[in-house]
């Protein structure tokens, strides 16, 4: 598929900024209601060494592979499954935008199933997220992630990890899950709760053993009681936890290489190394 022959949807704005979304006709477009839309920046996906024709892969590559594996396993169980991950690639970098066909072909070269490519300016990318109904936005750029989060889009920071796992491992910060009744809720809270619930539903398609995804809860500063509250809170949101670590003040970094999460979900944006 080339950019020229693809269908394009253009949104014109007053200042002639353009947000362009291209559908990838090679990939089956997910049922809009069933899918969990995950957006990744092309900066995060393509950051490695470049070939002449093809971009090298970056931090987000193992994550996308893991998402694909989950989809495969879901479809194995039920070929008519609609609760699948739907991956959207967002390019805000103007340099990369000029190489849009390279982005598309690199994606295909690496065997990645991206259903839509969005090209927008730095100022407009949040609009892309909203119009594409993105439920989780992943970036290596903290400012991008913060901006999106402040507009209500659940966002997480992708950090470089050690040996990534085949299993999709989502880490939740227990200290952030537990909430007092007073105090302003983060803008992305509703998005976080809805994502948790869909992720939980997806997780329940599989048994305790041999699941292609694992939910990992880490309570860093809280004691066992706050961990218990976090477990109950997540359960009430429809998300069952597979592994739980209550550190009661012990540092998190010694076990990050053992936990091997692909990303960390908290309220606001927290990096793995924070």
């Amino acid at each position, binding site marked *: 598929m080339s950019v020229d022959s693809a269908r394009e949807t253009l949104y014109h704005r007053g200042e002639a900024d353009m947000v362009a979304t291209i559908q990838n006709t090679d990939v089956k477009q997910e049922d809009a209601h069933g899918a969990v839309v995950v957006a990744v920046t092309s900066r995060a996906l393509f950051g490695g060494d470049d070939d002449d024709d093809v971009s090298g892969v970056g931090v987000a590559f193992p994550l996308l592979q893991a998402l694909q594996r989950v989809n495969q396993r879901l479809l194995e169980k039920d070929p008519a499954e609609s609760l699948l991950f739907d991956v959207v690639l967002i390019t805000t970098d103007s340099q990369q935008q000029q190489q849009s066909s390279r982005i598309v072909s690199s994606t295909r070269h690496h065997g990645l199933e991206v259903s839509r490519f969005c090209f927008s300016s730095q100022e407009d990318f949040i609009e892309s997220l909203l119009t594409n109904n993105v439920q989780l936005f992943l970036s290596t750029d903290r400012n991008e992630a913060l901006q999106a989060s402040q507009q209500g889009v659940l966002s997480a920071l992708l950090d470089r990890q050690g040996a990534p796992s085949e299993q999709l491992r989502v880490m939740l910060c227990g200290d952030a899950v537990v*909430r007092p009744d007073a105090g302003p809720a983060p803008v992305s809270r509703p998005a976080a709760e809805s994502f948790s619930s869909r992720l939980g539903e997806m997780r329940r398609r599989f048994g*305790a*053993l041999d699941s292609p995804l694992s939910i990992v809860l880490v309570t860093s500063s*809280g004691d*066992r009681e706050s961990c218990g509250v976090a477990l109950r809170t997540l359960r009430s949101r429809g998300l069952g936890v*597979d*592994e*739980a670590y209550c550190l009661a003040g012990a540092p998190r970094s010694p*076990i990050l290489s053992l936990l091997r999460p692909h990303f960390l979900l908290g309220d*606001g944006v927290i990096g793995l190394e924070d």
Partner: protein
Amino acid sequence: MSLSNSLTASGQDLTSSGNRVGWEEASTVLKPSTPTRKSPKPENAITIGVSARVLFNMEKEQHIYEQQGMEEYIKYQVEHETQPFSPGPAFSFVKALEAVNTRLRELYPDSEELFDVVLMTNNHAYVGLRLINTINHHELFIERFCMTGGNSPIGYLKAYHTNLYLSADPVKVREALEEGIAAATMFTPEKMTEVSETQLRVAFDGDAVLFSDESERIYKAHGLDKFFEHEKAHENKLLDHGPLKGFLEALGKLQKKFYAKGQRMDCPIRTYLVTARSAASSGTRALKTLRSWGLEIDEALFLAGAPKGPMLEKIRPHIFFDDQLFHVEGAAEMGTVACHVPYGIAQRVIKRETHDKETSSAPK
């Protein structure tokens, strides 16, 4: 976690990233109404990792896992979430550790040189709430845990400077020993003798536990008499150290803290050496080695080959470590919580037997 600590933490975080105000503020408001003691830093504390199956009695659930599989096991656990487990073989040991901590805090309120008990289980977190409810019910001071959902706990043991790991699973125990962590497989006696609630008592076998297995090899190859001869001849040559030497050392360090405050007679920690060595011949080498290591042992019992069960029944330790299953089983029969240290030459024969006995076990 005290309020002041979390305020300090969020104060630092506010300067680094304004966005973090949200959840940091929330965690300060969250402080529980009953003040909880702050857990010591792992590098300062003596960290004891215990698995769920040794801390609590999970025999029924283990049976369900073995007969009906993982899904039924988890279902059962969740259905009985509010039912606390009853104590397991490590329970009284953990309670005694807490009693020592209480005394240490009285004498040294600012010190972090305390026992820190961590629940280290490869149970699935679905069992987590039942475990937390049980810890609450028994009022145990366990604030740290790792529920690895089936993954090996060994990496976590290392990451948090674990000084001793107790599990019902010999495979994990062996893995831990191979990584240089003191570890032992805990057995459940049919009937547990009553132990002290105020004084922690720990009993160790000598060879292949505190000491290396070098002399044990002589015994295995040439018998007890030759062993005694050899030891007498080499009485001034230091033995090499065994896997539990470090733990005895840690206990000794805490004991000295009590002595420093004039509490030698009333020390809440007491250690015992229970060995097949004889006082007349081979015992000297053991004592000299301990002395050269700067370690004291409160009572050394040289049995010259006699069975250990009756002696242990008199001592009533909370825990007894031995490398030979024969002694471990003998002690358990007489009501002592005995742990097997699968180290050294004694394991070569045992390995073949246990391989047949070992069934796949439930998460612990």
